[in-house]
């Protein structure tokens, strides 16, 4: 499932190919790694979708993510 991803503090949007069965926490780690050349986020991390924070244990499918959705990654203390 391709997703448009934006990491807080980063300078660009990325396209991540994710698996519907992977968890939001796994996605968060993947996004953090993808942006690592430019920005380092401290755990715990939050994944935002349509204005709400997604539970880390949910799979992408359970969280209601669809292909080409936008997700944002922030640190937990970031207000979003």
């Amino acid at each position, binding site marked *: 499932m*391709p997703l*448009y*991803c*934006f990491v*807080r*503090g*980063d*300078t*660009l*949007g*990325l*396209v*991540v*190919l994710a698996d519907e069965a992977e968890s939001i926490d796994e996605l968060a780690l993947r996004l953090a790694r*993808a942006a*690592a*050349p*430019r*920005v*380092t986020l401290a755990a715990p991390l939050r994944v935002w979708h349509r204005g709400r924070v997604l539970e880390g244990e949910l799979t992408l499918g359970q969280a209601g993510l669809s292909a*080409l959705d*936008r997700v944002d990654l922030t640190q937990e203390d970031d207000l979003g």
Partner: protein
Amino acid sequence: MPLRDEWCDLARKLDWSFSYAEERQVFPEALSGSPWLPAQEWRDWDEPFRSTYAEYVSTQQRKEVSFQAIAEAVGRIEDVSKLDPGWLSVVKLHMATLPLAEFAAVIGNLRAARFGRDSAWRMTSLLGALDELRHTQLPLRAMHDLVRWDEQFEWTHRLFHSDDWVAVAGRHLVDELLLGSDAIEFAIGTHFVFETGFTNLQFIGLTAMAKQVGDRLFEQMLQSIQTDEARHAQIGHPVLKKLVQKDPARAQRLVDKWFWRSFRFFAVVTGFAMDYLTPLHARRASFKEFVEEWVVDQFQSSLSELGLALPKYWQAFLEALPIYHHMLYASAYTYRATTWFDFVLPGPKERAWLAEKYPQTWPELEPVWHNIEERWRAAGPGVEWFTHGTTPVAFCNLCQLVLCAGTPCRNSAVFVDKPGRRYVFCSEPCRELFEAEPERYAAHRGVVERILAGQAPANLLELVRYFGLSEASWGRDVVSGHYDFLKRGGQP
């Protein structure tokens, strides 16, 4: 009255009535442009240069001789190889993005030379087409001998024949502006907005920097081209003036659109050059300062004189001016293998200069460069991949540039769902322009759509090869991380 003035307009301003075809057939609206007006409405069209063909040939011949002498004197490998490596990237970027775009402008000018609505307009466009042919040939000729020294110079010709993301974005702009526009849109978009509005950044700003770094070849080439541009850019004003009288809403719409699209183009080509690639000692002013001096002031007065409002996206432009090219450069630095030129890592002195020039926006960008710097320090010189991204990046469905608008804390990308397809735009102006003419843009496949359709690889290394780059040509850090300031205890 001198003989020249007596006879000039007999040839230059020569229109006639048609006996065997309707005027609308000779000048169809689809090619001549909207609104379609009868010939008498264009009868007072004029521009100040009023060159004859003989004068043109004579002047151009002198310029060619002069440029050729400079090229022979200072354009050899042993001359160019002495230049600052960052500056060489300015040359590679500039030389690749412009010559074949200029060739497209030959076609745009030739269309106007046939379908422009007044004979003087057509004559000036014909000379414009010859100018643009020259602007294609000069860089191709000047860079040709350098290819055997540095393969990246081959991209002077290669870029627009490739599927590199910069080429995809460049073609999207150039195809519409220079190849797909009718004579009126071409005159306003190209001559009035792009050439009159923006190219001073190149011809004055970059020329001054070329002089400072000692690149006489580049300096002379830009100066030689500038004198041509100054002449044929005059086509834009009288066309826009007429359009303002007859269809002010369309006049405003065309200015709005091409102002925004031109700004995006120059943010890359000139923004990178002025604020990052040119060595600090040779910078006369920041990109923002140049734009304020040569675009903002001039554009405001030209539009006001014509009775037009500022472009619709003026505020968005002012907000983007101090940050957009910085976002794009930091992104491109960490994806440098996807381009054909090398990148400079701004060190402490460069970043102090940028902080001074961009006090409002630099604080959000400094952490990005600090992060990149720390990764270079951790990996050591030569280890390019540790400061390089591996995940595919997202592109705007209008400008086709990376989604770099907004700020690091708030990327301004917007999404629009249409039947069967989701579109993403870097900014509201790009979204609005797309939605105003979806028939022009909706079918285009950018890099991401090609990856998703299986036409391009998702793996970055394979994607770089799909872009047409090889290990010999892809972009690197100009010194592969061998900066003094990165050494433990090194001097800033």
